[in-house]
């Protein structure tokens, strides 16, 4: 039966949201029906619960982690369920009339039902974590409910503060619950409840306690977390009535009560909970007096009453716990009715400001009467339920629980707070309903519709009945609840109106008379004063909280983000280098690594000379890169050349060939790009003139560079002078010819042993080419590099100035002889590419080298003839080549599937062809063909896409100029 409590409202919520928004009645009926069903089910379950049974339901969620969907209903949970469901039925009924016709009610009721479900979940959870889940759900849904009228700034702020506070508390509570789970070894509530001693004696008890209290106290709006609650009043009144009577805020005290057997009774508990409770009790009541907003008054009164319950729970005596539970119920009844009454007043008169309201008894006598009874219950007037629980509270307050100052103070504080309660209750009644007839109300007040008042009537009746014959009405239910909390510790108590003349009665009397007196003393002040209590008015919790939140979560966060982070590249690079240095150095330093001895013997002078040149190139390139770009590029070429010779020297011709080819293409590429960079003229840069910061930065970078260079040097030296371990290379050497079918082991590795790498690598090339192509299609050169280069302009001008020269003669002449040679080079590079390709498997070369070589042939044509010239003659489809290349390579690899082998299994054989003779027929050749095609396509595409910018730019330039001219006209 238990899942009904959760499922029905949630499902109802999902259904209701799809109701048309003008169907206020139907929506309310539906929601009400669901609430009613829940209530009836609760009622039906009473006999079982009353007999001491505990209803359980369990559904596996994450059994491994001990988190299950466990529902559990004992007396206490039952009492709460009954309260929640009953009040929700009433609130739905009330809201049906309260909500305006234009309000999007489906959303309201959907959220309402969801909230009810979450709240039921909290009280019915049989698993601590599940409880936390529902706990946070109530926070989230209440956020949406409070912000229902989200076009109002107050509603938004109220909702946000509520969520921030309760959510924060909930997260802390979760940690507390997790620790409890760890201590106990289970999250199951029964197990937890049975292991109170283990928890209380655990060293982490205080941590757990504080974390749990952070959850409970924020939720219950206890000092100093109380301030979210008055702001939550921005919600529609039915929501307030619901949230502040039976649910939400009660969740906090529910948790305290639920875990009371486990957590209570220690000194820490007493101090923390008691102090928070007492402060809240007093301050809440005091603040309530000075509110001008009806709902504000009720809100602070709620805070105060919750403080009262908290104090009761803090005392640690079973009898106090009984009183707490009792007061929970009582408070729910009178507070719900009061909120509804306030809502009616607001609804009918158009304002909630008590300075403007008076004499409403005249217009709405029934409502007034009802409100008066409920207020009296709130004030603790005898014969009403509030009185009973308050008497119990007084009785407990004067008992001595622990000998300390707090305990001594309790009765006095209780009396004073009670006095304040009388004052604000009286103010609520007297100020609003009596006095002169109101003037200038937005609406002319009258009695509300019959059924809008019905819930209030019902609740007030309950106050009365319980107040008069408690033992017969609430008694059994209360007993069931109390037994389920206290078990064997359940004390003897009597629910009676009259306990004889005793101290509590005197305290009540003092409070009553004092409160009445206080009200009449302050009456005139309150009638005109501004909102909020004197002195404390300046100390607005919400304001402070907002400020703190804004400071912490916005201002500080922003400045922290800016100081901890950066959006500039250089510092980021710096960090990468630094961390890499640290990562490289630390293991060696910490491990006490010993550097290998320096071996100077056997140095080839020519090689040394070569590297002197290489290093000079590298350093020179670094030095020149800022102002002499061309020089830097030339020097870079030099460094590349030295690298290439080194590869040859160290027996790696394949690398040398590839490096060389790539080098050439890269140079052309960067030169193509150089045209679009801004002119950079060397300023007379005097090092002395530079600010210190710059010089320091350069020094730092220089040092980092030296460290990085030194580091790689040392590591590479250390590894290179070490004997070669048993590597996988020997496997390749053994099998390259016999199984891979090629004598060039490097190439066999590339196309066979590790062909998959090559496939990935050409895919990278393909991707980059596509990216470059796509990006350049959207390329917008900067205005100053848009026009043709200066040289061309001068040369074109020269041609134009001389009548016998056609445009473009200069360039034609310039390239006349070179282009003849360059044109003939095209077939020759083609042949070279074919040569490199075909010999690849046995000798240095291969598809990649061939592809690059061929693409250089193409570039040569572009350089000699220009883009248009070439493209008029050769139809180039680099995209197609790339696609085909990649597909051929993939398909070759997949071909081995046909023979039942894994991808890329190569089949190598030397076929004997007529005339040609022995010919290598490895499937790897086909793979290499794919590589060739792709590399050719990609390289050509990249270079040509860049080259095309020069053709596009003048057009763009002309367009821009034309547009400008038209704009001027």
């Amino acid at each position, binding site marked *: 039966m238990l899942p009904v409590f959760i499922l029905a409202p949630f499902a109802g919520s999902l259904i209701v949201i799809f109701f048309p928004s003008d169907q206020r009645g139907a929506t309310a009926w539906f929601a009400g029906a669901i609430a009613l069903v829940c209530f009836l089910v609760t009622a039906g379950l009473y006999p079982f619960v009353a007999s001491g049974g505990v209803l359980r339901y369990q559904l596996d969620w994450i059994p491994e982690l001990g988190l299950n969907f466990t529902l559990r209903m004992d007396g206490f949970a039952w009492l709460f369920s009954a309260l929640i469901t009953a009040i929700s039925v009433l609130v739905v009924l009330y809201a049906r009339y309260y909500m305006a016709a234009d309000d999007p009610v489906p959303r309201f009721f959907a959220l309402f039902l969801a909230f009810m479900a979450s709240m039921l979940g909290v009280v019915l959870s049989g698993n601590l974590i599940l409880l936390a889940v529902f706990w946070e759900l109530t926070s989230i849904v209440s956020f949406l409910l409070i912000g229902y009228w989200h076009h109002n700034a107050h509603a938004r702020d109220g909702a946000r503060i509520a969520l921030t506070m309760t959510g924060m508390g909930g997260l802390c509570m979760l940690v507390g619950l997790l620790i409890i789970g760890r201590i106990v070894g289970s999250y199951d509530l029964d197990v937890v409840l049975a292991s109170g001693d283990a928890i209380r004696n655990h060293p982490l008890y205080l941590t757990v306690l504080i974390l749990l209290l952070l959850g409970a106290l924020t939720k219950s709006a206890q000092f100093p977390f109380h301030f979210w609650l008055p702001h939550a009043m921005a919600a529609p009144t039915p929501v307030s009535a619901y949230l502040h009577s039976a649910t939400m805020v009660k969740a906090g005290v529910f948790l305290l009560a639920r875990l009371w057997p486990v957590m209570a009774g220690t000194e820490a508990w007493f101090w923390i909970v008691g102090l928070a409770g007492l402060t809240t009790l007093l301050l809440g009541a005091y603040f309530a007096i000075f509110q001008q907003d009806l709902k504000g008054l009720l809100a602070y009164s709620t805070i105060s009453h919750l403080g009262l319950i908290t104090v009761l729970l803090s005392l640690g005596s079973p009898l106090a716990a009984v009183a707490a539970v009792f007061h929970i119920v009582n408070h729910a009844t009178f507070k719900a009715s009061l909120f509804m009454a306030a809502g009616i007043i607001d609804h009918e008169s158009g304002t909630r400001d008590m300075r403007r309201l008076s004499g409403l008894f005249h217009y709405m006598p029934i409502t007034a009467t009802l409100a008066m009874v409920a207020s009296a219950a709130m004030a603790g007037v005898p014969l009403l339920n509030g009185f009973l629980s308050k008497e119990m509270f007084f009785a407990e307050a004067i008992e001595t629980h622990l000998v300390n100052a707090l305990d001594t103070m309790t009765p006095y504080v209780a009396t004073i707070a009670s006095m304040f309660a009388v004052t604000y209750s009286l103010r609520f009644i007297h100020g609003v309903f009596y006095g002169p007839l109101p003037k200038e109300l937005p609406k002319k007040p009258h009695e509300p519709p019959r059924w809008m008042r019905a819930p209030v009537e019902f609740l007030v009746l309950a106050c009365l009945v319980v107040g008069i014959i408690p033992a017969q009405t609430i008694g059994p239910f209360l007993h069931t609840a109390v037994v389920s909390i206290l078990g064997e510790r359940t004390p003897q108590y009597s629910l009676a109106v009259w306990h004889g003349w005793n101290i509590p009665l005197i305290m009540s009397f003092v409070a009553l008379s004092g409160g009445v007196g206080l009200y009449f003393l302050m009456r005139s002040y309150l009638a005109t004063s501004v909102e909020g209590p004197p002195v404390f008015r300046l100390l607005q919790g919400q304001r402070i909280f907002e400020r703190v939140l804004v400071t912490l979560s916005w201002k500080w966060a922003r400045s922290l983000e800016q100081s901890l982070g950066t959006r500039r590249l250089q510092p980021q690079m710096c960090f990468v280098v630094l961390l890499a240095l640290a990562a490289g150095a630390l*293991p060696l330093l910490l491990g006490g690594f010993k550097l290998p001895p320096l071996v100077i013997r056997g140095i080839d002078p020519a090689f040394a000379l070569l590297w002197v040149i290489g290093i000079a190139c590298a350093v020179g390139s670094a030095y020149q890169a800022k102002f002499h770009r061309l020089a830097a590029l030339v020097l870079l070429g030099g460094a590349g050349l030295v690298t290439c010779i080194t590869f040859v020297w160290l027996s790696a011709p394949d690398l040398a060939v590839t490096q060389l080819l790539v080098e050439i293409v890269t140079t052309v590429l960067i030169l193509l790009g150089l045209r679009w960079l801004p002119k950079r003229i060397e300023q007379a840069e005097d090092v002395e003139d530079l600010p210190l910061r710059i010089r320091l930065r350069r020094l730092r970078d220089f040092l980092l560079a030296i460290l990085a260079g030194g580091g790689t040097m040392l590591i590479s030296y250390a590894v290179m002078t070490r004997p070669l371990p048993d590597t996988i290379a020997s496997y390749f050497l053994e099998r390259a010819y016999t199984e891979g079918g090629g004598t060039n082991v490097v190439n066999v590795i590339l196309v066979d042993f590790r062909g998959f790498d090559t496939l990935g690598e050409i*895919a990278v090339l393909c991707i980059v080419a596509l990216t470059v192509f796509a990006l350049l299609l959207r390329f917008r050169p900067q205005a100053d590099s848009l026009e043709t280069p200066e040289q061309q302009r001068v040369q074109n001008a020269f041609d134009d100035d001389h009548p016998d020269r056609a445009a473009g003669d200069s360039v034609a002449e310039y390239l006349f002889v070179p282009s003849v040679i360059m044109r003939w080079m095209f077939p020759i590079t083609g042949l070279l590419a074919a040569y490199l390709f075909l010999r690849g498997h046995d000798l240095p070369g291969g598809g990649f080298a061939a592809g690059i070589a061929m693409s250089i042939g193409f570039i040569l044509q572009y350089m000699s003839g220009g883009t248009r010239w070439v493209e008029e003659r050769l139809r180039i489809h680099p995209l197609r080549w790339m696609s085909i290349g990649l597909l051929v390579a993939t398909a070759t690899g997949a071909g081995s599937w046909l023979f039942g082998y894994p991808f890329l299994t190569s089949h190598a054989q030397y076929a004997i062809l007529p005339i040609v003779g022995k010919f290598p027929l490895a499937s790897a050749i086909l793979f290499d063909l794919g590589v060739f095609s792709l590399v050719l396509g990609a390289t050509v595409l990249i270079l040509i896409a860049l080259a095309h910018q020069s053709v596009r730019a003048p057009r763009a330039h002309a367009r821009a100029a034309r547009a400008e001219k038209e704009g001027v006209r």
Partner: protein
Amino acid sequence: MIDWLHHLLIIPILLPLAVGAALIPVDERNRMLKGLFGFGSTLIVFVVAMILMRIAANAGNLPETGIYQLGNWPAPFGIVLVLDRLSAMMLCLTAGLALAAQVYSMARWHTAGHHFHSLFQLLIAGLNGAFLTGDIFNLFVFFEMMLAASYGLLLHGSGPMRVKAGLHYIAINLAASSLFLIGVSLIYGVTGTLNMADLATKLATLAPQNRQLVETGAAILGIAFLVKAGMWPLSFWLPPAYAAATPPVAAVFAVLTKVGIYVIVRLHFLVFGATAGASAGFGQEWLVAGGMLTIAFGAIGVLASQAMGRLAGYSVLVSSGTLLAAIGLGHAGMLAGALFYLVSSTLTISAFFLLIELVERGRDAGADVLAVTMEAYGDFDEDEEEEEVGVAIPGTMAVLGLCFCLCAVLLSGLPPLSGFVAKFAILRGLFDMPGTDLTTAMSAADWTYVMLLILSGLAAMIAMNRIGIRTFWASIEGTVPRVFVIEITPVLVLLAACIFLSLQAGPAMRYMQATADDLLNPLFQSERVLSAPRAGGQ
């Protein structure tokens, strides 16, 4: 039949590769066609990934099914693909995200530039390759493939923001790639192998000096991965780049950082696991420190973000930090939770990235600035006329709002969705460490981690709350955005996946637990890779 299943393992790499290649020459005017083919390919990959996950969950640990020897060369000589629960899970996740992003892109974003679908397919191929490969150099190749495609996709649509962010992104990652190469080659130079499993077996037997060199290599390699994973202070490029990317691209990028994490998980547990001798647990404390700093920085960034895109970017950091620290703390119980968190947070952030653009479509930029400044100075219009009649929310906004709420709940780890389950699982793993006494079993680092986890959730809650209120509740002059069904559906599907994950948390967690157990048993794993038989019975 067995054979067919066997080749299935490479489909997630090959199919996108082939489709991506085939789509290149197709005219850009047929974008829809390209998109459909791309979608079909991803769908197949997704199905295959599902099947693989089933295989991995049931019989995946047999060398006959989970190991694919490319070119029929046995490990450690050839390249092998290794299927286990972790890689299968990552494949599924990637394919799922990719599907969503792809559908989303077809509404409008794929028209922002050329070759979107090809690049997208190639990105998937790269990602899947990185997840499957068991060879560190091959990992480099796939890393580069994935990165190259991500560069292309980040720049998709061009524009100053993207290009600026892209420049930083590319520069940093190129530097990181150099580190990657140095690290890999150093490891090879000392151990003579490139296969991860083989490395794991070799490490224990190395001489101390050699082992230190391997550690150096691994540490340098680690920096390369951490750059990708977004650890502070290597991650400043990330939020701008992710915020600048087009939404479908950003959605897939959410999984990109996870590749870094994935590799760290892989190598950390395989190579520096229990069998590593003196190197066991190498670098853990650094991961913990870095991870925590990353969480803190991410959370601060989340709070400080004005724009949702940046917020999402910082959320990525939070998620990375959480995972890094969880890995570093190295408690066996946490690992399963961390893996669950990985999946959940990736799905969430993806959904959020997709959602952001839809939400922001109808917004007025000026109103934003005003709202921000008002908030910054704590000013509120106290005297605003209160009108206590609700305003109906247009259907589109309602759906967007709902999605946003779900995202907020997921990001901040609030119950009941998977974000919460994940955090709970991590925390529970942390608290449930062996050791009789909780106070001594947990170190200061553990407690700090707990605190950061909670605080980061709180930061996300506050920030999402703030931005959500500003967007959905306080928008002064917003027009209802035009949203296509194929744009909102992916968001809903991703969020539904999160919800599903929350509901099915039990089975999911069992899977994660099994995954974690696999990871913690490196010996078994390397045995499995190295003993796989060759096809053709050799």
